[in-house]
């Protein structure tokens, strides 16, 4: 059987794309639970270390089970190469640290997952990398945020938990104009809503822990190199040796051979296997996540005790037009809504029976959280406002249960107010 090309539709690529038969014709990749790989001769291992031959060396750098999912994600995202990491945060850290050096600047969306915000603000800030945070839906502010030191633009395709939807093609145009890459965290949109490359992303990042895994059984991350950015630039002299030797793989090579190898945040083979299992059913689950989220958002919107609902699929959402255009009428599984205050938010969360109160998204189960007191508790009021987190806000990751049961659960909980 030959390779399956890009002529196939996404739903088919998710099932078949990039897959190779396992041992004895197994339809699953083997879980190679091994740390290191032996060779008969010193010459063979030397050739691999020199890059003259391909082969596995050590699981921190690569592993057949990881490679299987890396190839599948590369095909699904229509990229040139993928590197799996231990978590979504590891993917962001690794990708960004491959690009920036002390003294450089990141231009980032202010609407971010909390971990990404503190990575940029505090962790990288302490190493001399400055981040400017800008509203990603304000293109003028974005353009004005670029300085001579800016080395990348970072946005989430759908902001978690702000639920804003930036115009990725317009942001990509700004990045291109300034000769810097656009990194898109597409965790919330997933390839099902859009292949971020087609909207202008140069590097796509996923927390595979979420929708790709789908059933919340393992953490993981992925960095997809779209192969669209020209790293031969005076802004990126540190890419020169990689460009000279690996051309359009310069970014992948710098990540794999230097940053990922040194940071060491590699994926575990078993987790990679489970995340790969999830990828096969992504389209089917996302279809239901999207449908249920729209139904729940519409119900909440019409409920007298609910102050507001933020879901890009509601026609009166300020993000509806952009989301509708770039995600082809799909809006994802995440939404937020507002009650009167923190106390009423807590009462509703405590009264929910089906929905689980926990810090995650993208599970088959419906999940809720009160971000202001949990995942965003450490942030100042000013930063919370920037992220769109208020005291009365509840975030919902709509599951794939029957929509009527989800709505009944929220209806009963709201009755407690």
């Amino acid at each position, binding site marked *: 059987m030959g390779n399956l090309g890009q002529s196939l539709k996404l739903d088919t690529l998710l099932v078949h794309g990039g897959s190779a038969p396992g041992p004895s014709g197994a339809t699953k990749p083997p879980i190679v639970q091994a740390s290191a790989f032996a060779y008969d001769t010193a010459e063979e*291992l030397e050739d*691999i*270390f020199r890059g*003259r031959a*391909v082969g596995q060396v050590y699981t921190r750098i690569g592993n057949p089970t990881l*490679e299987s999912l890396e190839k599948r994600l590369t095909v699904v995202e229509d990229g040139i190469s993928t590197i799996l990491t231990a978590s979504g945060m590891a993917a962001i850290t690794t990708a960004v640290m491959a690009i920036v050096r002390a003294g450089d600047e990141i231009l980032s969306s202010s609407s971010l997952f909390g971990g990404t915000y503190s990575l940029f603000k505090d962790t990288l800030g302490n190493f001399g990398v400055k981040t400017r945070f800008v509203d990603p839906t304000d293109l003028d502010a974005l353009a004005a945020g670029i300085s001579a030191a800016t080395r990348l633009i970072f946005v989430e395709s759908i902001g978690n938990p702000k639920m804003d939807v930036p115009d990725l093609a317009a942001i990509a145009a700004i990045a291109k104009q300034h000769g810097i890459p656009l990194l898109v965290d597409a965790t919330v949109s997933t390839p099902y809503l859009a292949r971020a490359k087609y909207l202008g992303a140069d590097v796509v990042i996923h927390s595979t822990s979420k929708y790709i895994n789908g059933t919340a059984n393992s953490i993981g991350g992925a960095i997809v190199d779209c192969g669209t950015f020209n790293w031969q630039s005076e802004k990126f002299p540190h890419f020169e040796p990689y460009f000279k030797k690996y051309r*359009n793989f310069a970014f992948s090579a710098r990540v794999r051979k230097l940053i990922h190898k040194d940071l060491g945040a590699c994926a575990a083979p078993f987790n990679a296997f489970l995340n790969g299992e999830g990828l096969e059913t992504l389209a089917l689950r996302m279809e239901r996540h999207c449908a249920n989220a729209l139904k729940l958002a519409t119900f909440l919107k019409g409920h007298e005790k609910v102050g507001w609902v933020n879901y890009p699929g509601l026609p009166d959402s300020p993000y509806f037009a952009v989301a509708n255009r770039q995600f082809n009428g799909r809006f994802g599984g995440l939404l937020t809504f507002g009650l009167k205050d923190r106390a009423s938010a807590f009462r509703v969360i405590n009264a929910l029976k089906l929905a689980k109160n926990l810090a995650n998204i993208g599970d088959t189960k419906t999940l809720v959280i009160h971000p202001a007191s949990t995942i965003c508790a450490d942030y100042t009021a000013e930063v919370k406002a920037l992220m769109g987190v208020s005291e009365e806000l509840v975030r919902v990751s709509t599951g794939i249960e029957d929509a009527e049961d989800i709505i009944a659960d929220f209806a009963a909980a709201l009755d407690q107010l």
Partner: protein
Amino acid sequence: MNLTVNGKSATIEAQGNVSVLQLLDLLNVSQKEYVTVELNGDILDRESFAASPVQDGDTVEFLYFMGGGAL
């Protein structure tokens, strides 16, 4: 045609001109989609594989970024 491939001599049976792209198949080079090719000391752009001829006596190196440590 005699070549030096990754430091070793190699003979390929071919009629007429052979491009770098064809050489990848003739030598059954693994993971073709990820390989970088150095022809007589020059790294080739992937787009030029099809248009780059290989000649008797050429030195060819195949390079991969996925493996071990050193650059």
